[in-house]
């Protein structure tokens, strides 16, 4: 069974087609990478799949629910981390997690346990009562991820989760992603870093709103006759 199935998904803003009839499937527990230059349509596609935007035409099913008619059910079953850091800076780490956990109706006592467990895993339990504004960016990103999966969603959408953070934090971040995936969470992640693309089970490369290439990193490298995803991307862009 597929976690995500996009069928001719399209979004137009006036004359501009941001996402142009894309079709793809993502299996349960898979880490699926969305690659592409800026403006290729990755964020718009994610926003449609997470219920922030309505498609102009086409549809998709997320965790078995239709994005056109069952967005409420979808929202309960997904986690989302936006390109822009979007936790409340003037609330503490704990308050942020408590706020979102409560919105997802996690019972009070269980919520507290989950927050403490999750902070311990991030080695941030000492920062529980620190204002989010005053912690470093790398930690913020890890915190945003932990908050996005606090309600144990089936699918997590990550929109450039590692942009602007240092390589060490990036590696730690991917550890978190693998951890989540090993628990059966489906991950859809967009990135600019080609080395990160190698970590994905499968990737797609988008350009001008369309999916131009799709497959496992190995398949794509073989197809293009190169050794790294970086080369795949460069060769693809030149073509």
């Amino acid at each position, binding site marked *: 069974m597929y976690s995500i199935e996009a069928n001719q998904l399209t979004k137009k803003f006036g004359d501009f087609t941001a996402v142009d009839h894309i079709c793809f499937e993502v299996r349960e527990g898979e880490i699926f990478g969305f690659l592409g230059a800026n403006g290729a349509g990755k964020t718009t596609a994610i926003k449609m799949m*997470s*219920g*922030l*935007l*309505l498609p102009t035409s086409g549809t998709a099913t997320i965790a078995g629910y239709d994005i056109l008619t069952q967005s*409420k059910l979808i*929202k*309960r079953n*997904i986690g*989302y981390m*936006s390109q*822009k*850091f*979007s*936790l*409340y*800076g*003037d*609330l503490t780490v704990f*308050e942020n997690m*408590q*706020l*979102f956990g*409560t*919105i*997802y*109706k996690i019972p*009070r006592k269980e919520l507290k346990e989950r927050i403490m467990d999750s902070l311990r895993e991030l080695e941030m339990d000492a920062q529980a009562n620190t*204002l989010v504004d005053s912690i470093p960016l790398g930690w913020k990103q890890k915190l945003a991820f932990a908050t996005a999966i606090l309600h144990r969603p089936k699918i997590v959408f990550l929109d450039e989760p590692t942009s602007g953070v240092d390589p060490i934090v990036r590696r730690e971040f991917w550890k978190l992603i693998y951890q989540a995936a090993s628990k059966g969470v489906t991950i859809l992640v967009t990135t600019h870093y080609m080395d990160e693309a190698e970590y994905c089970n499968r990737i797609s490369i988008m350009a001008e709103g369309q999916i131009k290439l799709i497959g496992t990193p190995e398949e794509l490298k073989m197809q293009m006759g190169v050794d790294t995803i970086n080369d795949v991307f460069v060769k693809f862009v030149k073509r």
Partner: protein
Amino acid sequence: MRTILILIKKEFLQVFRNPLLLSILVVAPMVEFMIFPFCADYEIKVLNIAFIDNDRSQISKDIIHSFNSSEIFVSKGLLTSKKDADEKMKHDKIDLLVEFPSHFEEALYKNEPTVIAVTANAINSVKAGISTGYVQEIIGGYMQDFAAAHTPSNMSAAMAQQASMQSNNASFSQGEERRRSNSTTVMPEQTITPPMPIHISISNIYWYNEQMNYKNLIVPGILVILVTLIGCYVTALNLVREKEIGTIEQVNVTPIRRWQFLLGKMIPFWLLGMAEFGAGLIIMKFVFGISVQGSLPLLLGITAIYLLVMLGLGFFISSVSENQLQSMFIVLFLFIVFVLLSGVFTPTEGMPGWAHKINYLNPMSFYIEVIKKIILKGSEFESVMKETIVLSVMAVIINTGAVLSYREASK
């Protein structure tokens, strides 16, 4: 329920951690209260008056003399020509000019009509209106005595019937201000025909504001501005700020319902607004000595409804704006229109018909009516029922609009 509670908690935490917002909420109203009532004061304490006496009779001298006994008028003496007077008025040396025609005394004794010209500097039309009123009062008073002394006794019986006619100005705004709208030219000439020989005494009683104290009008007005600012301004900035920093996106991907989210924002600011209003009432009582004449629960109840209108408006503006700057401009624009049309500082009676029509859309004009009626007059519910109904309807409409537009904006 738990969702709304956690949202309320979140909003309160944010308010109390935001020094700028806190100072807007606490300092700004206090400063407004301390400064406004003392500046927005239309009271007239001194009037410089000069005379041109073309008659030089005993009566004209007596009248001029009677101005000296008034506390308000400061006599700048006799002038010889109109040109001289004009010059003095231009340089603000005099506020008023009283001109007696030649053969004034003669006309009085012959019982012929005669005219005293009173010229006022009407750059400040309120002042001009009120000061010519004072002049009329003094000349009228003199003429009365004169008439009493010189009327044949057979006429006095007929006159006694008209003897005590009172003009009760129900409030400051109806009596004094209506005159104001009539005299907007720079130097209007007002003519006074001495009320010879009919004996009418006019005594003014200013109901609900017996000392003609402007603070009684201004202070409740500031209360209105306070509630409006908290309600509209703070909320208009709040939601759009979440848009700007992107947190609203994180909320929008959750299964939260839109009305829950808006309610979670409204309740905290509604409580804050009510607290501000309460603080305002306390200041009003202990600093300005104005206490609420009517029912306090009624006043609080209608304020609660008015706040809902303003909160809804704030959120509506917030959800149609792209950023804080935009919504700030919209609020500022609306706020100025509301204040100018509402009658907070200027009476609405003199406004043209179209302004009155616009005022049917102006929640502030209904609310200031309620405030004046309950605080100053001590009115009961019956006399503010119309305003209450209008404000309630406005609250429903604008809040529905806010929820709908917020939904629209997040697509």
